[in-house]
């Protein structure tokens, strides 16, 4: 039943993404100063929002794990973190492709770009840390503490364009940037399927973490012989 719900959600999300692609390419006009490349924003920004939702979920679940010691929270936290990293990578790469055309460079050590890269490295460190600790209880506890620490970079990424002088465009949400209503609608409309895909991937990855925990438990049982 649960698997069927995930499949239905995935099909809905992909169908909506294809529909949005058609509207982006055929219906929406080119942005006046940037041209067609502006459309990258419809993936770049929702990917960042989805990554931050994943990291925020990991923060809450890590706190819940430390409070309850229930491994269920740890399983979902690692899944949300991994999916967050994937969408964070999509955000960085689409930003680099946009920057190559608009700024003429692939990368600059701008506060927004740098803090986002650090965010990705921190959460990649979280996954590496989990691989380095064998004992499941110790692994979950250390990872939860590290996840809380890693989240401190997320507000820095968000506020970096307000706190420091930057060449990154001002945010269209709660910032100095602005967009035509049609672009605005597409931005949110494209976030829906991207977030849905994120939820499906987290559910799928959480299931794998449960199997991994079952394997760990069976291994411990086997060593008792």
């Amino acid at each position: 039943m649960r698997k069927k719900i995930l499949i239905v959600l995935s099909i809905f999300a992909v169908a909506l993404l294809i529909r949005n692609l058609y509207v982006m390419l055929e219906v929406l006009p080119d942005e006046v100063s940037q041209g067609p490349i502006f459309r990258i924003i419809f993936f770049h920004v929702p990917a960042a929002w989805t990554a931050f939702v994943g990291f925020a979920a990991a923060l809450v679940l890590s706190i819940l794990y430390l409070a309850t010691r229930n491994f269920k929270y740890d399983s979902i936290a690692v899944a949300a973190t991994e999916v967050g990293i994937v969408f964070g990578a999509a955000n960085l790469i689409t930003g680099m492709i946009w920057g190559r055309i608009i700024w003429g460079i692939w990368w600059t050590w701008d506060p927004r770009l740098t803090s986002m890269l650090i965010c990705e490295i921190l959460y990649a460190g979280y996954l590496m840390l989990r691989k380095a600790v064998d004992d499941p209880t110790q692994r979950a506890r250390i990872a939860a503490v590290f996840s809380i620490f890693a989240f401190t970079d997320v507000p820095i990424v968000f506020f970096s364009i307000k706190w420091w002088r930057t060449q990154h465009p001002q945010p269209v949400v709660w910032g100095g940037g602005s967009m035509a209503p049609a672009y605005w609608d597409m931005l949110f409309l494209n976030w829906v399927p991207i977030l849905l895909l994120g939820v499906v991937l987290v559910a799928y990855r959480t299931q794998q973490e449960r199997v991994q925990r079952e394997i760990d438990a069976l291994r411990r049982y086997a060593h008792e012989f």
Partner: protein
Amino acid sequence: MDPRNVTFMFYGFAAVWAILFAYLIFLVLRERHLKDELDRVKRMIEDREHKS
């Protein structure tokens, strides 16, 4: 306007799909590995139970 503008827009779109597909393939391969590992550990326990 840069003549590569449209091409790079498609590169951006393709990058998002490629990243998602790559992660999906990674998840499917990991699921296979986990199933094999689970079967292996279960067989190992059965063998040890028979011996003891």
